[in-house]
C-alpha cells in the first residue's frame, strides 16, 4: 500500500531545506552593506576554488566572511539545535509543551553568563577573553542540567514527573541568582547582561563558533540516532519497556545531548525563546508525529525560524539591531496562541 504521508514528508523536508538555503543567502546579502547576489555566490564559490562571474570587492569579502557568515552559521547551528532539542524533549516528556529550557540548561547558562559579566570584572586579566562568557554559560548550563537529573534520580532510575518538577525548581533558583547578580551589577554590566538575556547572534567570531558548532553537531546526531526510540516511547514508558526499549538509557542520552547542544547554543546566543517549542509543533502539523520525520525536520525548521528572525531583527531597526530573542518571542507567542486556539476548535470534547 502506498503511503501518502511519506511523500508529503519528503516534500516538506525538501521545501524546508530550500527555504533555509534561500533564507541563508538573504541573511548573508542583507545588512548595512548590501552584497548583490551574484557577488555573494561568486565569493562563496571562490572558497571552493571555483572562479565565476565578477568577484566581490575586498570590503564585501571582509564583511561576508568576518561578520555575515559567522552570524548565519551560528543562526543555523543554534536554530537547528533548539529545534531538534525541543522535539526530543517533547518526545521524552510525551508532552508537546516541553522546551529545552525545561531541564534547567538555559537558566543555568544565564546564571553562569550573568555571573561572569558581573563578578568576572574582578578576575585576573589573563582570564578575560571573548570566549570567557560562553564558557561560563556552557559549564553552568551543563552543571544545572546534571543537577536536575541528579535530583530526579535514585540509583539507576529516574522519574519523568520528578524531572519536570526538579527542572522548575532549578529554573526558579537560577532566576533568583540572576536577579541577585543584576542587583549587584553596575549600570554598564546591567546593560551587558540584559543584552545577553535577550539573546542575539551578533558579535561572535569563528574562533568561538567552531567549537560550539562541533558540540551542537555531536548532540544533534546523538538525538537523531534515538528517533525510533522516541516513537516507541509515545506508548508510555511501561509499554516501551515491553517492546524492549531501555527507557532509562534513552532518558539519560536525551538529557545529556539536549544539555550539551542547548548549552553550547545558549552559551553563544543567550536566551532565545519559542524556537524549541514552536518548530516541532509546526513540523508535526505539516507531516505528522513520527519522529523519524519530526527530528530532522525540526532541525531544519528551527534553523529557518532563527535565521529569518535574525534577518528581521537586523532589518526592523536598521542600522541598529533588535535582540533576536525579542523577535522570536514577539512573533512566536502570538503564533503559538493561534495554534492553541485552532487545536481547541478542532477537538470535539
Amino acid at each position: 500500500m502506498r503511503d501518502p504521508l511519506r511523500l508529503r514528508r519528503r516534500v516538506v523536508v525538501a521545501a524546508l531545506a530550500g527555504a533555509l538555503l534561500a533564507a541563508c543567502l538573504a541573511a548573508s546579502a542583507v545588512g548595512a552593506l548590501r552584497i548583490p547576489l551574484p557577488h555573494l555566490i561568486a565569493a562563496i564559490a571562490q572558497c571552493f576554488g571555483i572562479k565565476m562571474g565578477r568577484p566581490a570587492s575586498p570590503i564585501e569579502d571582509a564583511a561576508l566572511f568576518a561578520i555575515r557568515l559567522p552570524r548565519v552559521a551560528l543562526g543555523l547551528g543554534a536554530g537547528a539545535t533548539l529545534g531538534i532539542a525541543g522535539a526530543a524533549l517533547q518526545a521524552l516528556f510525551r508532552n508537546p509543551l516541553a522546551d529545552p529550557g525545561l531541564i534547567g540548561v538555559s537558566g543555568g547558562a544565564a546564571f553562569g553568563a550573568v555571573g561572569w559579566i558581573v563578578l568576572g570584572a574582578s578576575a585576573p586579566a589573563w582570564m578575560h577573553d571573548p570566549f570567557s562568557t560562553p564558557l561560563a554559560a556552557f559549564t553552568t548550563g551543563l552543571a544545572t542540567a546534571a543537577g536536575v537529573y541528579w535530583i530526579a534520580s535514585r540509583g539507576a532510575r529516574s522519574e519523568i514527573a520528578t524531572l519536570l518538577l526538579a527542572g522548575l525548581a532549578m529554573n526558579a533558583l537560577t532566576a533568583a541568582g540572576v536577579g541577585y547578580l543584576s542587583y549587584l551589577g553596575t549600570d554598564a554590566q546591567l546593560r551587558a547582561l540584559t543584552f545577553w538575556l535577550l539573546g542575539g547572534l551578533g558579535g561572535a567570531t569563528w574562533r568561538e563558533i567552531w567549537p560550539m558548532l562541533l558540540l551542537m553537531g555531536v548532540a544533534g546526531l546523538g538525538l537523531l540516532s534515538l528517533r525510533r526510540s522516541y516513537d516507541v516511547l509515545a506508548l508510555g514508558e511501561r509499554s516501551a519497556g515491553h517492546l524492549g526499549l531501555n527507557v532509562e538509557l534513552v532518558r539519560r542520552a536525551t538529557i545529556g545531548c539536549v544539555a550539551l547542544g542547548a548549552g553550547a547554543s545558549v552559551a553563544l546566543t543567550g536566551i532565545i525563546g519559542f524556537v524549541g517549542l514552536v518548530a516541532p509543533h509546526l513540523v508535526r502539523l505539516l507531516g505528522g508525529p513520527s519522529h523519524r520525520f519530526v527530528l530532522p525536520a525540526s532541525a531544519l525548521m528551527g534553523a529557518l525560524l532563527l535565521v529569518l528572525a535574525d534577518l528581521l531583527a537586523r532589518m526592523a531597526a536598521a542600522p541598529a539591531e533588535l535582540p533576536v530573542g525579542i523577535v522570536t518571542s514577539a512573533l512566536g507567542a502570538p503564533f503559538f496562541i493561534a495554534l492553541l486556539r485552532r487545536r481547541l476548535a478542532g477537538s470535539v470534547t
Partner: protein
Amino acid sequence: MSAGKPGLIRLLGLLGRDLSVVVGRRHLLGHVDIEATPGLLTAVVGPNGAGKSTLLKVLSGDLAPQSGVVFLNGQMLSAWSAEERALQRAVLPQTPELAFAFRAWDVVELGRHPHRCRSTRERDHTAVSKAMCLTETFDFARQDCSTLSGGELHRTHFARALAQIWEPRVGGLARVLLLDEPTASLDLFHQHAILGRAAQMARAGAAVLTVLHDLNLAAAYADRLVVLAAGSVDAAGPPAEVLTRERIERIWRVSAKIATNEDGTVRVQVSRSEAGRALLRDLP
C-alpha cells in the same frame, strides 16, 4: 541459546512461583503460583483489589516481587535482556497510552520494534496488516488515533501486541501474550472477537494469560481459570470445575446460578434480586 544449560527449569511459557508483593503493610500478593502454558488460554479472575493487575505487573517484569521467581520459557525473566523478552512476549495494558496523533497503522507498526534488526520490510508489513485485519482495525489504518473511539483504540493496541509476536519463535520458544482486562472498553461483538483471537493465538501455540472481570466471558473462552482472592490463589482449573455456586458467593459476595450451555461450557447468572439480597445480608 542457554535453554540447554543444566539446572534450568525446562518449562515453556510463563511460570510464576511463590510470588509475593508487599507494599507498605498491604500484602498485595501472597505466595502465588501461576502458569501460562503454551496452547492454552488462562484467565485470571477475582474481585476488585484481589491483586490481578499486580500479578500481571509481576509477570510482565514491571514489578519485582519481594519473593518468588518468574520464568519465561525456562529461564528467569530477569536473565533475559529487555529486547529478548520483547521478542517472545507482548503485553496489552488495561489503559494503553499514546502521546501525539499517530495513525493506527504507525501504532501497530511499533509492535515490530523488537524485530527491527532481524526482520525484513515485507515480513513486518505482513505482520502489521494481518494483525490489523484480525482485529478489524484495517479500515481505519490511515486514520489519526486521536479521532478513534476508545474501543477502536484498544483494538489497535491489541493489534500492536499481536504484531509483536506474530511469527512463531524459532528454537521452540513459546510466545506469551499478556492481556489486562482486554474487553473493558469493547462492545459485545468485539468482546467476543478479541477473546476469540486470543484463543486462536493459544491454538497456534502461544501461552495466553488474560485478566478478566466477566466470569461468563472467562468461562466461554478460557481453558484454565485462576481465581485470585485477597492476593492468593483460591482455585485453578477448568472453568466448569472452578466456577461453583459456593465459590462465587464466598468470593464475589453474590448468589448466582450456574447453568450449562449446549457446548458444555458454563455460565453464571446473577439476578438483581439475588445480588441485592447478598448486599442486604452484609449490612450490620
